[in-house]
C-alpha cells in the first residue's frame, strides 16, 4: 500500500505545549540507566552552568512521539502503523532541554518514498520554546514493512 505523496511538505502546528518536569527527567534518565548527576541532582546541574536538571539527549523523543503520532495515524496518509519500525533517528541540538522548559513541537513531513515494497516516511519535529527559541530538531525515518511476499 503506497503512502499518499501529497503529504510531503505538510506542516502540523503544535497541539498544546509540554512542560518539562524534574521528575520526568529523573524517570527518563533512570529508564535508560543514565546516572549522570546533572539529570538527577539540581545542584550538580547548576555546577555545570544549567538553570535546572538537564534532560538526557534523547528525551525529546517523548514530545516528538506525541506530536508525530497524530501525523502518522492520519487515515488519509495510509500508513499501516502495525507494520512500522523505526529506521533512522537524528537529533540536532541548539541547547539541551532543562527542567522548567515549556516546549512546543511543529511537525513536518519531509519525505515519502517506497523502496522494495516498504513505505518510508521522514518526519521532522522542530522543538522550540513558546517564544520560538529553537531547542532541538528531531528527525525520524519510519519504515512500514510491506507484506512478506512483496519485498
Amino acid at each position, binding site marked *: 500500500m503506497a503512502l499518499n505523496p501529497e503529504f510531503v511538505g505538510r506542516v502540523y502546528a503544535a497541539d498544546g505545549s509540554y512542560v518539562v518536569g524534574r521528575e520526568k527527567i529523573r524517570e527518563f534518565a533512570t529508564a535508560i540507566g543514565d546516572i549522570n548527576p*546533572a539529570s538527577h541532582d539540581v545542584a550538580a546541574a547548576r555546577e555545570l552552568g544549567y538553570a535546572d536538571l538537564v534532560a538526557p539527549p534523547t528525551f525529546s523523543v517523548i514530545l516528538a512521539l506525541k506530536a508525530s503520532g497524530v501525523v502518522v495515524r492520519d487515515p488519509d496518509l495510509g500508513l499501516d502503523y502495525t507494520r512500522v519500525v523505526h529506521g*533512522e*533517528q537524528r537529533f540536532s541540538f541548539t541547547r539541551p532541554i532543562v527542567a522548567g522548559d515549556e516546549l512546543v513541537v511543529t511537525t513536518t513531513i519531509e519525505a515519502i518514498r517506497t523502496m522494495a515494497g516498504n513505505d518510508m516516511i521522514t518526519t521532522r519535529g522542530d522543538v522550540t520554546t513558546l517564544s520560538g527559541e529553537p531547542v532541538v530538531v528531531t528527525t525520524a525515518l519510519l519504515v512500514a514493512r510491506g507484506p*512478506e511476499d512483496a519485498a
Partner: protein
Amino acid sequence: MSARVAWADVEVGTELPSQTFTVLRSDLVRYAGASGDFNVIHWNERIATEVGLPNVIAHGMLTMAMAGRVVTDWVGDPGALLEYGVRFTRPVVVPDDDSGATLEVSAKVSAKGDDGTVQVTITATSEGATVLGKAQARVRLA
C-alpha cells in the same frame, strides 16, 4: 556547558571507554512508561512473533539512548552533544529470562573540527551483530 574532556587532548582515533549494557524485559516496560512508546512489539511476545519478529525487541530509541551514554559519560556533560544520529539496522532481541539481551557499545573520535568539536563514531552490537549503523555524534569539548 562544561565538558570535562579537553579538545586539545583528543585526536582522531582516540577511543572512548566502552560499555556493556544488559537489557531485560523489565527495562523495556520501564522505558515504555518513561517514553510513552507503548508499541506492543516491545512487551508482547505473541504479537511480536505474529508480525514476523523473532521475539520481543527493544525500543530502537532505548538502544540509541544507551549507546549515547558512552559519549555523554565520556564528556560528563549531557548538554555537550550537538548532533546525534543513528540508523537502526537490526533489532535487539530480548528473551523472557533473567539474563536478557546484551548490548556492547564502543566509540572513537573519527574527526576533529577546528571549532572545539569532535565527531564520534559509535559501534553497537548485540549477540555479535551490529544493531546501529551510521551512529555518529558531534560533541563540543572543553
